């Protein structure tokens, strides 16, 4: 049998780049919708909690400083999770569009890994959009520092990876008709009990809560952001946040890849 061009091996990195190129192309076309979907909620929170309530005098001045890192954490997590979970549910559930990628000459895990990395990129982009918007809505934020930029990057990448991988896991494990349930039963509680809108140390007042919320990965992103961006606000030690996120990211990465494989190969 003659060896066709297609029968010659293709490097996995070449396929990976092509897959990522495809996702970036599609995401660029859908940028306005993407932003609307992922930064709407954080921005609304900013308006109410970062602008209206302080104006009315219901919250003290330092609150905005504690709120900003939390809002960044929420944008990062929401967009990372959604930019993977929604396409997965759709592709595997009914459109089957992903099948052309499943036929790519590369190990199946590479295709899943590309999707997760794509989610990381989208998470970072939406956090980058939210930051200046926050500044505009809330005005100058006392004690905000970019002095620990390396820490910010580490927390951002670890957090985005954890949530993107979680999105892969949820998106491949959940039946399409239960997608609404994912938002109300998983994402909403995660956002509200993720120490995004209040610092973790504030839960000293409710000790049971303080320890219960530790199962929530968003806590470590929000607290890590506080440790890196607004160290004046009492927060969890940075190394604890980073360590926890690294472990969580590894667990979700593993679960996400396994679940993807299960859906991809019957």
């Amino acid at each position, binding site marked *: *049998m*003659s060896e*066709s*061009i*297609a*029968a*010659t*091996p*293709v*490097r996995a990195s*070449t*396929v990976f780049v*092509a*897959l990522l*190129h*495809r996702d970036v*192309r*599609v995401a660029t*076309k*859908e940028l306005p919708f993407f932003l609307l979907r992922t930064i709407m909620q954080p921005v609304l929170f900013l308006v109410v909690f970062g602008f209206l309530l302080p104006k009315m005098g219901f919250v003290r001045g330092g609150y905005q400083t504690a709120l900003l890192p939390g809002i960044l954490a929420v944008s990062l997590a929401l967009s990372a999770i959604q930019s993977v979970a929604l396409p997965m549910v759709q592709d595997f559930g009914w*459109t*089957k*569009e992903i*099948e*052309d*990628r*499943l*036929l*790519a*000459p*590369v*190990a*199946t895990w590479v295709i899943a890994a590309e999707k997760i990395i794509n989610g990381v990129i989208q998470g970072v982009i939406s956090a980058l959009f939210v930051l200046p918007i926050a500044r505009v809505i809330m005005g100058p934020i006392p004690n905000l520092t970019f002095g620990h930029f390396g820490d910010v990057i580490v927390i951002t990448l670890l957090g985005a990876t954890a949530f993107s991988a979680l999105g892969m896991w949820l998106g491949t494990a959940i*039946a399409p008709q239960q997608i609404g349930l994912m938002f109300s039963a998983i994402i909403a509680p995660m956002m509200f009990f993720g120490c995004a809108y209040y610092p973790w140390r504030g839960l000293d007042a409710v000790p049971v809560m303080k320890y219960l919320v530790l199962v929530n990965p968003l806590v470590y992103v929000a607290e890590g952001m506080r440790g890196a961006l607004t160290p004046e606000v009492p927060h969890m030690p940075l190394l604890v946040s980073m360590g926890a996120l690294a472990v969580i990211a590894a667990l979700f990465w593993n679960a996400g890849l396994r679940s993807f494989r299960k859906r*991809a*190969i*019957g």
Partner: protein
Amino acid sequence: MSAISTEGLRKVYPIAAPKRRGGAPPYGPPGMSAPPPVASGARELVALEGLDLQVGAGEFFGLLGPNGAGKTTTIGILTTRVLASAGRATVGGADVIKDPVAVRRRIGVVPQRANPDRGLNVLDNLVFHAAYFGIGRAEATRRAMAHFEQLGLTDKTHEKVDALSGGQQQRLMIARALIHEPDVIFLDEPTVGLDPQARLALWDVLRDLHRQGRTIVMTTHYMEEADQLCDRLAIIDRGRLLALDTTAGLKAKAPGGTLIELELDEAANDAAVRVRELDGVVKADATGSTVRIQSSEGGRIISAAIEAAEAAGRHVKNITLKEPSLETLFIELTGRKLD
């Protein structure tokens, strides 16, 4: 060397699994000879039970069977999308389980339902698919335009995928399956849901591919399609291979041989009784003024049959002769009709 080879291929799905393809319940008449697909008492469904196939390079091979026969499962295993529970399969010499990446390099797949990438336009569907195989944009575009030309999609190049009709989307799937010039092409029920005109157009495309020397494996539950296109056919039902031969060879195995219909001027009962006595007549039945004769000796009995009808006092108004068909064979093998 065989382009495709399977040995004792078996696939069992757990009953509770949400995705049990090939798991359609039997809808034929009860009391069939075929064994039930469910293993005794177990919560599992056997979609394939020890399938052995050899497909030669350049062959147009058909997998024929009703829904739930195991066709899609077979294609799934050969295209590395379904893991076999037992047995071995190779495509282009590469093992589908041990080296799926090598298999994917060699195959193009046209799915049962068109699944283009809706985030991309028509041309980019091919350009990106080619990129997954390491083919650069310029080369991919050149190939894509050539395929569009052949498949009549040139004016749709920059359209959104949603602007294509069902038949056009199916042709786009064919172009996508060919863009990386695979040795082996799999088509899973490619003409389901197409109107007759689009179906005939697709047949022409497939004949062209066959002439180019590619190995083609196609599943279908349309007798006519298998008959028109395939060199060799495997008839499978409930995960088992029932017959495997060239289309002509299979037809020769059809029961009762040639079907001859004599249309008479009046009721045919007496004529049928006389025809039944003739040598080479397997069976003769009367329906109204028509006698249906199954002949084991082709058309050679026609003159004797006409004499027998005239001896019964009837005149023959019309004669039709039907070659043994896959359909009659299929009914004989499975006890049920195809669709």
